[in-house]
Structures are given as structure tokens and as C-alpha cells.
């Protein structure tokens, strides 16, 4: 292993600029003639709009334009779309998909819904004028609860009777019922997966510009996938032709899924910039982020697990109600279906599984993918159920998992719910985690806690996720509207330095470093001579972006393919220059050698020769610049075991995580330091979900947790030092053997934390977030 190649803990190249305040985020970019946008937003969860009077606002100081949905529609701008069609039960071919206007047309459906755009010379003027837009609302009753939305007396959308988006199922219902009939024990668990607000450090923003001379648009936007933004905005919203729209996602300060989606703000600003003839900047205020970023999770589920007398799982039956919010966001429909229920086998051999999911509309912000997207919901439900079954049957929670793990010799393993797992060794992760967590010493630690009037608990989570999203044909077959391949472009410069472009996007993951390590490793170029460029549709090749822990597994594989093409061409050039047959050229670490001789050319010399081709093989094109597109063969399946240990003060419910152990199998690891950082951040978010975070709407659909005064983000002092380890079964299905590491922490940790807390508090269910009050009540009940 070289010091900068695959497996090295190289310091992140991008941190220099971030830590010295030299990042370049969308709001940092200012252009000549720029104006500022303010969106008039609905103060009501559900209301008819009888009229909008913009005249006072239009006459206010500094106002350039006040625009409404009527004008947007008159210009032919299409509604916002959802890119994944979910076919339902009983042959229903398509989900109910209500029209989602980028600016309201006659009705608003959640607090924060977009009603009008005000463009002004300063932000203050725009904000003041926005208050002067008079909207005549006629309030309607609000539908809020996930569990009660179906058959509510109020219907939000005509297109969705009973507030149902879809009624979907997966698995074998008859086989599942049959297995239940013969079960020795059935465990039933009702779980709520709490609604989360993403809270990326950088709020969403855009800067839209139109060039009258060339007829080109440039949109800077906080996006995890600029090409997808461009595609959707041209093909569906029709704001600009694809070849005339340049989308740039510069430095982006965190996304966690919330910046995948194509939101009203960027569509409206891109349309409006041409209309008003001025560049338009919009940056969300934090309170707008709370109201209008797509939220995450929000499930209410019932799970039943059938077991035989030895604790072997026979079947799993699940019903889930998934809150999709007021409209379908860009990928919303897929998250509680194919991203969720296909993971319900977990790491276990459960032979029969059936799950049905009702996706419901409510008068709340749209809900879509958030770090883990569907897989945390599956893991939480399954691992809460398994832990509960172990308690009910008096089997050690580690032991019940051992008895049910898919064994290492069983791969490839076809689950009853679509996925075929490629490889894994779940027992290895469990044993390593038990050792690192000193599970053997737990009983003594518990009695020590009890002697101090405290309670102590231990909780396990054995998770699996489907990453490396995703084989395009499989996605298409399941209703997805896009291909999920990735692209790479490796461009040698004549001086031997390299520019690498890929269609993924770096917003905290360290791509500039990890991808450079892959290229350095494959092509023998020093890492400081490699520049990774992402996020500009005018620079790099078409790519699908970053989410679903896909970047290294799919984008990294595309880079390897392009590097292989470089090596192939380099061999031709070397053979000519070294006067040898191409077959005799051996390549290793940047050097092309004639086998069995000391005749050698370095890749930098090859590059120079390619650009100054005076002595050059006939029929070979000049230049050293290769491109590759890679469509994955399958998903990748990171898995592992996390163990959480908590100490609880029963007099107050104060809960301290005293030990947290994570053992993850990510296959090949490119940069262990970056991966460990991803694990830490993921666990932080998972602990946030488990103990602190929870979006709360009141009965009128007002967001109670609309600021940091009430929405509890995890902070450093809520988290322990993490005890992080790995095991490795490299994926046989991609050239690097990688699996992806971005979401694991957020997927694995919530059930580990809740299993530990419930273990400490007598075993009864505690819903997330396990606030101090809930823990106190559980302790009271247990005493």
C-alpha cells in the first residue's frame, strides 16, 4: 500500500479550504445586477386561495417583480415531479400523483407551501414586500397524523381519494400466513419511526442567471446531483432546454438526501430570471429550511415475527403507514417501498416475508429520502422486533441473532424480498463487536450502576443496507424513471498531472481525496497532481449524483474503468516508443516496462508523448483522455453489528451513552479515516433520531419544532467516544470490492440505542425520540 493509495488514511484535500473559511458555497457567489428573492409562504396547513393581491407589494421600495402561479403556468412551466412510479396491489398500475405546482394554484397544502415570488433589489426589500402580498385564504381542516390520514373526513387532493397515494405490497402473503399458523411463538411490535428535519449546515440556496446574448441559463444550486437537476428542469419543468442550461453545484455544506430533490425555489428562480432580466439569488432562512426542506422517515408500523421453539425466525409480517407529506417529492414514493421493505430480511434467513405499505398524504412538508432512506426504517423495525422476541423467549439477544444469521457459505443469497446479497459474514461482525464492547463484563457494570441508584442497559443492532445504487434495468423494472449508472472522465494533462471528473457530488464525503487515492493507486500519479472535479454540468460528463452510499461503489468503479482504458492506450504508446510488442508491456504503479528488461516509461512520459506525438504509433489517436460509464451489476450490501450501552438515572430519565461499539463490513476501504468520520457522523445522526430529534406538527398542521429552540439536534456532548472497528468481505461484483459507508451509522444506531434504553428500563416499548421524560415514565412504570 502506498502512502496515498487505496487503504491509506490520507488527510482530506478539501479540508484546507473548508477549515480556513475559503469554501465557495452558493450564497458566497454574487454577480453583477443580482436581485434577491423572497417566497410568500402559506401560514396555513390547508386552505383555499380565493385571490392574491400583489399590487401593494409590487409598488413597494426596490421591488422588481411579484410573480404568482398564474404567470408560471401561463409561461408553460410544468409542475414538480416524482420520478418513481409505484404500482399497487391488485394490479393497480400507478400511484396517485397529485399535481404539485411550484407556485400554488388556488390551494395550499402545508405550512410553508409556496404562494408567490417577490424579487427586489435587496433581501430586506424582498422580505418586506413579501409581507405586503395579500392572500385571501379560506382555511380547510388539516390532515396531520400518519396513522389517521386514511379515510380522514378531509381529502387533500382530488387525485388521491382517502388521502392514499398507494397501497403496495411485497412478499408472499400466503406462505407468511402459513408459517404463522405453525409458529411456537409470535412477537408483535408496534413502532413509530419519527419524522426528522434534515438540517444540513448550509441551507438550500440558488442563484439563477440568464444571458440574453447567448440564450443560456446558469443555475448555481445546492444540489447533490446537478445533472439530475438539469434533466428534470428541462424535460419536465421546461424552464430551459437541456443544452442551454448549465447547473453548478459548488461547495455544498451537507445534504443527507435533502439536496437530491428538485424544489420549487430553483425552478421558479430559473424561470423568473429570464422574465425579469436580472440574476436572482435565493438563500433559505433557517426557519424556511425547517418548513420546506423535504423531511425524513415518519412511519407507523406493526410488525409480527413468527418463531419456532428454538427462536428460529419462520416468517415476518409487516404493515406500514408511510407519511409522504402534502405532495410527492422527487423520489418520495420509492423510499417507503423499494428502499424499505426489500431490506426486511435483514441479515437473517427468515424464509417468508410479507409487507404492505400505505403511502398517505397529509398537510405537512413533503417527506423524502434522508440519510439511509428506507433502510433505517427497515432496520429499526426489524431489530426492535428481534430484540423484543429475544426478551419474550428469554434468549440472549446476541444468541438469537447467531441462530438466524445467513451463513458465510450461503452467498449469493436470495432473500424473499427482491434482493440477492452478494457476500457477507455477519457472525464475524457480531463476535468482534461483542468483544470490543466487553459484553462479558456487562453484568458487573450493571450491578455497579445499580449500586449507585442507576439503571444500565445493552442493546444490539445487526443491520444490512442496499447501497451502490443501482443497476439501471432493475430500477426501471421497479418503476424508477432514471438509470443509476455513473460516469468518469480521466484527463491527463501534457505535463503528467490529471484532472478527474465524475458525475457524483461531494458535499462532505471527501471525494476529492478518496477518488484521487483510487486514481493515484491505479495510475501511479502522486496525489497532489490529481484534481477531482465534480458538480458542473458544463465540465464533467453526465452523472447521477451522490446519495444512497453510491459514490465509491458506482462512481469509483467508473473511475477504475476509465483508468483501465488509460493503461490500455498507454501500453500501445509504450510499445511503440520502447520498440517492443504491445503484449510484452507490463504495467505496474505508473510504469510501463518491457517484460524482462529494464526498459521503462513512466505514465507522465506517456502523457507527454500522447500530446506531443512526434514519435507515435500509427493509428493511435493523440491525447490521453478516457471516459467510462459504469452500470452496477447489483446493489452492494454493507452490513455490521452495533452495540450500545447506556446508563439511566431513573429519577429524571437522564440517559447517557456510556459505550458505543460499531463493527462494519464495508468491503474494501479506500480511506479508513474518511470512513471512520462517516461512521461517527452517521451514528451522531442516529443517536439524534433515537433520543433527541422529532418534528412535531400540532393538530392544525403548524410546525411546533420550527427552530433550534425546540428541535433538538445532537451535539458533541450528547455523544460518547465511539469504539469503531471493521470486518471485510470485499464485494465480488465491483472492481474495487467496495460497498459504501455513508449511511451505515444512521441506519444501525437507532435500534441499538433504543434496545439499550428499553433494556435498562424494564423492556417496555419506548418510541423515538426517547426523551428524558419518556425514559423517566418508563422507569416509573418498571418500579
Amino acid at each position: 500500500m502506498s502512502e496515498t493509495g487505496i487503504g491509506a488514511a490520507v488527510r482530506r484535500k478539501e479540508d484546507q479550504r473548508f477549515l480556513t473559511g475559503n469554501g465557495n458555497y452558493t450564497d458566497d457567489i454574487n454577480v453583477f445586477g443580482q436581485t434577491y428573492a423572497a417566497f410568500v409562504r402559506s401560514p396555513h396547513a390547508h386552505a383555499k386561495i380565493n385571490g392574491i393581491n400583489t399590487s401593494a407589494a409590487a409598488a413597494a421600495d426596490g421591488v422588481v417583480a411579484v410573480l404568482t402561479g398564474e404567470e408560471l403556468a401561463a409561461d408553460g412551466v410544468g409542475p414538480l415531479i416524482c420520478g418513481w412510479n409505484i404500482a399497487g396491489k391488485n394490479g393497480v398500475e400507478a400511484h396517485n400523483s397529485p399535481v404539485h405546482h411550484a407556485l400554488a394554484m388556488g390551494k395550499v397544502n402545508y405550512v410553508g407551501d409556496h404562494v408567490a415570488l417577490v424579487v427586489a433589489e435587496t433581501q430586506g426589500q424582498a422580505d418586506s414586500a413579501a409581507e405586503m402580498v395579500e392572500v385571501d385564504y379560506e382555511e380547510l381542516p388539516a390532515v396531520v397524523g400518519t396513522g389517521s390520514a386514511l379515510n380522514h373526513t378531509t381529502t387533500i387532493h382530488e387525485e388521491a381519494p382517502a388521502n392514499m397515494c398507494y397501497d403496495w405490497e411485497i412478499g408472499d402473503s400466503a406462505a407468511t400466513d402459513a408459517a404463522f399458523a405453525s409458529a411456537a411463538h409470535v412477537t408483535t411490535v408496534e413502532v413509530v419511526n419519527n419524522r426528522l428535519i434534515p438540517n444540513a449546515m448550509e441551507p438550500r440556496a440558488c442563484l439563477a442567471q440568464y444571458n440574453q446574448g447567448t440564450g443560456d441559463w446558469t443555475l448555481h444550486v445546492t444540489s447533490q446531483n446537478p445533472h439530475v437537476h438539469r434533466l428534470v428542469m428541462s424535460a419536465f419543468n421546461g424552464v430551459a432546454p437541456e443544452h442551454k442550461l448549465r447547473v453548478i453545484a459548488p461547495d455544498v455544506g451537507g445534504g443527507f438526501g435533502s439536496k437530491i430533490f428538485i424544489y420549487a425555489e430553483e425552478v421558479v428562480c430559473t424561470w423568473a430570471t429570464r422574465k425579469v432580466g436580472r440574476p436572482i439569488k435565493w438563500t433559505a432562512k433557517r426557519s424556511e429550511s425547517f418548513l420546506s426542506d423535504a423531511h425524513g422517515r415518519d412511519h407507523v408500523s406493526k410488525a409480527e415475527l413468527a418463531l419456532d421453539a428454538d427462536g428460529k425466525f419462520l416468517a415476518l409480517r409487516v404493515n406500514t403507514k408511510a407519511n409522504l407529506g402534502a405532495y410527492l417529492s422527487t423520489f418520495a414514493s420509492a423510499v417507503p417501498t423499494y428502499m424499505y421493505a426489500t431490506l426486511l430480511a435483514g441479515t437473517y434467513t427468515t424464509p417468508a416475508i410479507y409487507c404492505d405499505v400505505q403511502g398517505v398524504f397529509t398537510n405537512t412538508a413533503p417527506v423524502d429520502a434522508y440519510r439511509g432512506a428506507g433502510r433505517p426504517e427497515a432496520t429499526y423495525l426489524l431489530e426492535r422486533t428481534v430484540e423484543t422476541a429475544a426478551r419474550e423467549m428469554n434468549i440472549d439477544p446476541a444468541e438469537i441473532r447467531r441462530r438466524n444469521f445467513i451463513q458465510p457459505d450461503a452467498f449469493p443469497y436470495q432473500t424473499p424480498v427482491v434482493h440477492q446479497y452478494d457476500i457477507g459474514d455477519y457472525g464475524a461482525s457480531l463476535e468482534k463487536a461483542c468483544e470490543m464492547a466487553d459484553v462479558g463484563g456487562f453484568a458487573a457494570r450493571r450491578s455497579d450502576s445499580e449500586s449507585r441508584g442507576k439503571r444500565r442497559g445493552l442493546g444490539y443492532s445487526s443491520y444490512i443496507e442496499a447501497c451502490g445504487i443501482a443497476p439501471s434495468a432493475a430500477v426501471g423494472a421497479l418503476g424508477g424513471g432514471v438509470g443509476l449508472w455513473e460516469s468518469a472522465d480521466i484527463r491527463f494533462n501534457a505535463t503528467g498531472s490529471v484532472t478527474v471528473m465524475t458525475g457524483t457530488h461531494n458535499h462532505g464525503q471527501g471525494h476529492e481525496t478518496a477518488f484521487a487515492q483510487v486514481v493515484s493507486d491505479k495510475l501511479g500519479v502522486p496525489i497532489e497532481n490529481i484534481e477531482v472535479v465534480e458538480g458542473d454540468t458544463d465540465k464533467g460528463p453526465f452523472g447521477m449524483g451522490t446519495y444512497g452510499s453510491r459514490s465509491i461503489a458506482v462512481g469509483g468503479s467508473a473511475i477504475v474503468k476509465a483508468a483501465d482504458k488509460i493503461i490500455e492506450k498507454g501500453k500501445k504508446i509504450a510499445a511503440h516508443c520502447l520498440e517492443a510488442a504491445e503484449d510484452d508491456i507490463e504495467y505496474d504503479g505508473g510504469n510501463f516496462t518491457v517484460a524482462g528488461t529494464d526498459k521503462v516509461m513512466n505514465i507522465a512520459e506517456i502523457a507527454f508523448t500522447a500530446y506531443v506525438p512526434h514519435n507515435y504509433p500509427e493509428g493511435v489517436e493523440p491525447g490521453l483522455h478516457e471516459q467510462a460509464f459504469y452500470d452496477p451489476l447489483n446493489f452492494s450490501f454493507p452490513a455490521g453489528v452495533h452495540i450500545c450501552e447506556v446508563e439511566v438515572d431513573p429519577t429524571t430519565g437522564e440517559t447517557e451513552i456510556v459505550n458505543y461499539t460499531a463493527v462494519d463490513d464495508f468491503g474494501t476501504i479506500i480511506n479508513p479515516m474518511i470512513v471512520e468520520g462517516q461512521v461517527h457522523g452517521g451514528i451522531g445522526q442516529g443517536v439524534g433520531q433515537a433520543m433527541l430529534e422529532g418534528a412535531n406538527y400540532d393538530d392544525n398542521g403548524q410546525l411546533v419544532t420550527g427552530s433550534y429552540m425546540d428541535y433538538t439536534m445532537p451535539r458533541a456532548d450528547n455523544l460518547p467516544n465511539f469504539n469503531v472497528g471493521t470486518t471485510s468481505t470485499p464485494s465480488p461484483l465491483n472492481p474495487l470490492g467496495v460497498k459504501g459507508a455513508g449511511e451505515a451509522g444512521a441506519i444501525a444506531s437507532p435500534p441499538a440505542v433504543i434496545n439499550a434504553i428499553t433494556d435498562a428500563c424494564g423492556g417496555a416499548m419506548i418510541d423515538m425520540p426517547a426523551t428524558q421524560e419518556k425514559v423517566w415514565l418508563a422507569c416509573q412504570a418498571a418500579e
Partner: protein
Amino acid sequence: MYGFDYHRPGSVADATSALGGADDGKYLAGGQTLLATMKQRLAAPSDLVDLGGIADLKGISVSGGTVTIGATTTHAEVAASADVQGAIPSLAALAGDIGDRQVRNAGTIGGSLANNDPAADYPAAILALGATVTTNKREIAADDFIKGLFETALEEDEIITSVSFPAPTSGAYMKFKQPASRFALVGVYVAKTADGVRVAVTGATSHAHRGPRLEAALNENFSASAVDGVEIPVDHMNVDIHAGAEYRANLVKVMAKRAVEACG
């Protein structure tokens, strides 16, 4: 934020006249409450009269067992003051646990008391320590100062100039933090003073208040176990997404016990 006129007077007299001349003026101290509400467009004063330029309102002094803190003294200054740490260590600790570093470097004792947030810390301190609030017009005993939810005895143009705290024999403030804002979900200040044990509770109800039942029990037997027998009424407790009435009442007891134990 809406536009406003800004004044920076050099004396208390100039400050009151600046406010008198304004349409709808407000005094500005650390801005940690006022500016946030203005940014959210929830407050729109026509004028801000900044008290930060008035030398008389700053500083800490100790004399005859009484600590006097100028109104514009920041939380950070109180926390770091050797005088406060020496005379009333529990007060220095309280100041050092308000908000975060940025808030403590800007927020002031005068602003905190004038604002009288139901979950603020200083209101508990003045009640438990039997402090006196001095204004440009008069001296107000702590028990008369706190009136209700965000309500004090202050008149429109009245300026807090300083707050005087008689040092107790011992004292301790225990704060159970609301997890998001980290204001007090419940805070209990227990002090052994010349007039006996004083207990003040913040966060639990609409405003900070004395705890007469706790005081009675502790005057009889100053021990954590004495708190066990006290019934904390739940009917006036705040109820919100962070805590119900029963839980808050329980926290009052637990924090009181912890404070008694910390008093030694």
C-alpha cells in the same frame, strides 16, 4: 429585520431622554433576546437605545458581604469574576452555564432580568438570594420585581442600573436543561441566607417563583430527604412538547435535592 434608528447615549439621563423622544423605542443591551426577535420580524422598534456606552452600568463590586453587579455586565464577566466566585460561587456557576459562549459574551444581567423569560436563570438567582434590583428610579426587592410571564415591575422607560446580591452562607443552583434550547426546563436555586433557607424555581411555571413548601421543609431539616416529603403542586406547571406537568414537578424535587446536597 425592519429599519430603526440607533442611539448610543453616554449616560442614563441621555438614555431615558433618547427613549422619550422615540416613537416606539427599546433599550438594547446584549441583544441576545431583542435582536433575535427583530430578525424574525416579531418586534419592530422604531429606535434602539444602546446601553452599552454607559460606563456607570458596567462592573462588579463587593462590599460588606454584598455583591453588586452593573446591569450591562455580561454573563461571561460574572462567571469569570474572582469577586463573584469568592463571595457567591453558585452565582458565578449559574452565569457560566447560561446559553453558549457567544450568548454569554454578549448577554447581560440587566437584559436577562428585564426580559424575565419564564425559563431564564437569573430570575431564580435574585429570588433565592434576596437580591435588590436598582433602577434609575428606585430600589426593587426581588420578590416585588418578578410579576408574571415576561412581566416585571419595570416601567416603560425605567432602566436597571445594577443588581445587589447579599452573599448567602451557602447556595447551589441546579439546572435541568431543555434539550433543544438548553434554557432551564426546570432550575432550582437553594440558598442558606441570613433570613433562613430561600428556594427559587424557574422554568416550571409562567415565571420564576419562590418555593414556600420547600423552604418550610428545609428550614426545619436542611437535608435532601426533607425534600422527599414535600408535595409539589402540578396545576400551574408548564406543559409543552418537552415536558408535562408531572415530569416538571418531579424535576423540581430532584433538582431541589441535588441543590441541597451541593450546598453541603
